[in-house]
């Protein structure tokens, strides 16, 4: 069986922006593939192309073995799309929404009714099925939107930032629903700018930036991709932070990332434990008390930062005031992450 998705050399230009710039990606069947990237990286453009809403300027794209450029209607029968904004009708009940989409998938009235029931049950929405959707919570709307993309029993489910803007509880709920689908055998391609979302759901992550895949692998592969470990230091006294940074900076292969509220300094290093020892000596030499020091693997967050030069969840234009900075990397400031 061909891969569920194969993209080669996709490009797309909108007036002044190059949204996709030679994107290559193959997604295998039987797993979740996450497209991870900052705002404006080209995630949404790519998923809209897979959903047959956009044509590429160049390149080839097959979905479930079907040429998406030549035979969009066959692709539409194989996919389900749930978007950033939940495209369900507030003035209709949950059941009516699903039945409508079922009819549009070519089901007759009886089949559409049956499919709606199965989906409502699967997503735990049966109790609210006959209420108007405008009375639903944000999380329930997203779930229903997900449900609407399922009534056609898609081979490939496309989720464009499925949990953006949801509170943590609804987010977990939706993750569970997606995991259940995957367990039942649906292939999923999702875009996200949340690293933990990719880490939680995806077997395979493609990091894209400026319209290209810049890294691609399992979460574990990506975490060890750069060959980077991190020396993590918590200083005891906030007044010592700047001295500690000065002492540790020469050891790192990149500039240390500092989180002032927690008094912690993360120094990316290339030689692991040898450099942990150096760090201990360096701090001891200036007689600086630490409350904790250790070596750990880089998080996906840090890998992302290393690869793209900016944090995943921050606004674009990270280095607006970095005039004196010698490199792009040293300008980065880690976002105070929760």
């Amino acid at each position, binding site marked *: 069986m061909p*891969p569920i998705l194969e993209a080669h050399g996709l490009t797309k230009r909108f007036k002044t922006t190059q949204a996709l710039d030679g994107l290559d990606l193959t997604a*295998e069947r*039987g797993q979740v593939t996450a497209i991870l990237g900052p705002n404006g990286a080209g995630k949404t453009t790519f998923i809209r192309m897979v959903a047959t809403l956009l044509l590429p300027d160049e390149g080839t794209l097959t979905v479930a073995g079907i040429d998406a450029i030549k035979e969009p*209607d066959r692709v539409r029968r194989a996919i389900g799309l749930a978007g950033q904004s939940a495209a369900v*009708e507030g003035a209709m009940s949950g059941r009516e929404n699903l039945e409508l989409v079922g009819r549009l*998938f070519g089901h007759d009235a009886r089949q559409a009714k049956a499919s709606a029931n199965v*989906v409502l049950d699967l997503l735990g929405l049966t109790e609210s099925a006959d209420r108007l959707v405008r009375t639903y919570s944000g999380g329930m709307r997203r779930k229903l939107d997900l449900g609407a993309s399922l009534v*056609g*029993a898609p081979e490939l489910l496309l989720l464009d930032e499925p949990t953006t803007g949801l509170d943590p509880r609804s987010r977990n709920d939706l993750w569970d629903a997606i995991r259940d689908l995957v367990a039942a*055998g649906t292939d999923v391609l999702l875009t996200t700018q949340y690293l933990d979302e990719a880490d939680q759901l995806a077997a395979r992550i493609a990091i894209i930036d400026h319209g290209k895949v810049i890294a691609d692998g399992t979460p574990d592969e990506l975490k060890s991709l750069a060959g980077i470990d991190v020396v993590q230091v918590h200083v005891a006294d906030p007044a010592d932070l700047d001295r500690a940074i000065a002492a540790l900076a020469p050891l790192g292969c990149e500039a240390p990332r500092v989180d002032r509220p927690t008094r912690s300094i993360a120094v990316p290093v290339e030689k692991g434990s040898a450099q942990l020892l150096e760090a201990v000596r360096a701090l001891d030499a200036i007689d600086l008390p630490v409350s904790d020091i250790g070596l750990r693997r880089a998080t996906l967050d840090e890998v992302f930062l290393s690869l793209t030069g900016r944090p995943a969840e921050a606004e674009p234009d990270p280095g607006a005031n970095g005039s004196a900075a010698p490199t792009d990397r040293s300008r980065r400031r880690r976002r105070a992450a929760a």
Partner: protein
Amino acid sequence: MTTVNPTVETPIRTLDLPRPTHAAGALTTTLGVARRTVLRNVRNPQVFILGMVQGAMFLLIFRYVFGGAITTNGVRYVDFLVPGFVGTGVLFSGMTASIGAAGDLEEGFFDRLRSLPVPRVAIAAGRVLADTVLATIGLTVTTLVGFAMGFRTSAPLGGLLLAVALCVFAAFAFTWLFVLLGLIAGNPQAAQSLGLLVFPFTFVSSAFVPVESMPGWMQAFARNQPLTQIVSAVRAFTLGDDAQRVLGHSAGYFATRSLVWCALFIVVFAPLAARRYQRG
């Protein structure tokens, strides 16, 4: 390089659901999309009824406030005004259609539809059909309010039905333009601003005052623009015997011109609107 999952060789049917074997037809799609859009309006009674109340209020103001100062060639003002109101209603419904289409685009509803195996043109047609139905409801209400306010006609029932049919057809034809404008605008706020374009057409017409009372240069526009043709046709149908004397031409004359305008709108704007639903 690739991670092979053991489920690959035996594809499990996702859910216990039938997979679509054929696309939904154009008719099913058009009706499905139209039904949703009608429900969206009818189930928001605050907005829907407010629109009607607003229309009735303007009718009252024109009838009782301005009406006394307007002379209409021996025809009672209320008999002159109500056909004008019904005709302009076509444009105001169009404005709502434009805002609605922009909202569908912004909310992602059109993306959902376009990702489904349905004919593209049916998505547009569904929207237009719904807006035509809504316009018909609106013009029915306006007509009833008009009768309540003293509008009378001596025209035969056939003439009245022709007048209604013409308005419904005009609503259908104009909606293609308005949906196109809404899709170009991209969001409801912009569509609403763009919708202000209807004002010169509604007021610089024969809808509320006789064209002869306007300055000469304005008359040229007012007399020949499409809304005046439609309003005059409706008026000619409802005035019965007085029509030829008051309007200078027969109902057939205005109806033919109206139909030509409507056909022109459909031929030009329907393909442009439908094209917006294709892949970008």
